[in-house]
């Protein structure tokens, strides 16, 4: 299982809001496809899927504030 986490986004950015999931739990995703979008004060950031597999769980739904390094979902390879 691969954990999806909010990566380091750089200077002064410690958290972000999960603004859009491109997939629903249970759906198949391919490595490199847009998986989830985060929004900070002045930037949006699209996180591509790190692996191919099934998005088994969404831990942070849209609208939730998450910290850098926090797990927001799981993918079963």
């Amino acid at each position, binding site marked *: 299982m691969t954990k999806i986490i909010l990566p*380091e*986004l*750089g*200077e*002064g*950015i410690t958290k972000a809001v999960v*603004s859009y999931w491109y997939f629903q739990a249970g759906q198949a995703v391919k490595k490199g496809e*847009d998986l989830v*979008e985060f*929004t*900070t*004060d*002045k*930037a*949006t*950031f*699209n996180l*591509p899927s790190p692996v191919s597999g099934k998005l088994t769980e969404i831990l942070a739904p849209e609208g939730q504030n998450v910290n850098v390094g926090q797990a927001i979902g799981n993918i079963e390879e």
Partner: protein
Amino acid sequence: MSSGFDFEVLDLGLIDYQKGFSWQQDLVNEIASGKRKGVLIFCEHSPVITLGRSAKKENVLKPGEQLKSLGIEVVAANRGGDVTLHLPGQLVVYPVFNLRYLGRDIGLFLRNMEKAVISLLNDYRIKATALEGSTGVWVEQKKIASIGIAVKNWVAYHGVSLNINCNLDLFSLIRPCGQDIIMTSMARFIHFNDLNVSEIKIKLADKFKQVFTRG
């Protein structure tokens, strides 16, 4: 920090907002695939209100019908930030840059864009500053440049809009960036005859070179 980064400059002139967006999307894909490292786009847009991902509808202060009668479109944009307005006389700068060459640091990228614009304005003897916690460029507590970006596959797009000589009255149609702020422009500080947009573009491209490629 710059680690071999360089960029090309592309001047699209006056272009519809959606066409400008389409250019950016194509370039994001090219840059993500490694064909280019970065492209700095200059353009101007016909009047358009754009709603960033954090936009609240109440920050557009006039009904859609009225905006339509004024020839102003309202479009959703996938950048960060709230509501903004583009119009002729405002220089829109889209640095479509591969942040893999720039330390994968979105915060630093935003600060460096501010730095480039501030340095340009200082050359015109306009005392511009950045305000902590309020991304953008400010002169005498008024906003002269707004910033909002998106990042896909670590390629940044969207960017900065710098008011050069635009109709500032139109900003009364919105709460810019969702705040009660007053907008200003370079024309408020410099005589019209000294505002040469072609020269501003050349100087600003050079400021971006200094900030992003010479570390």
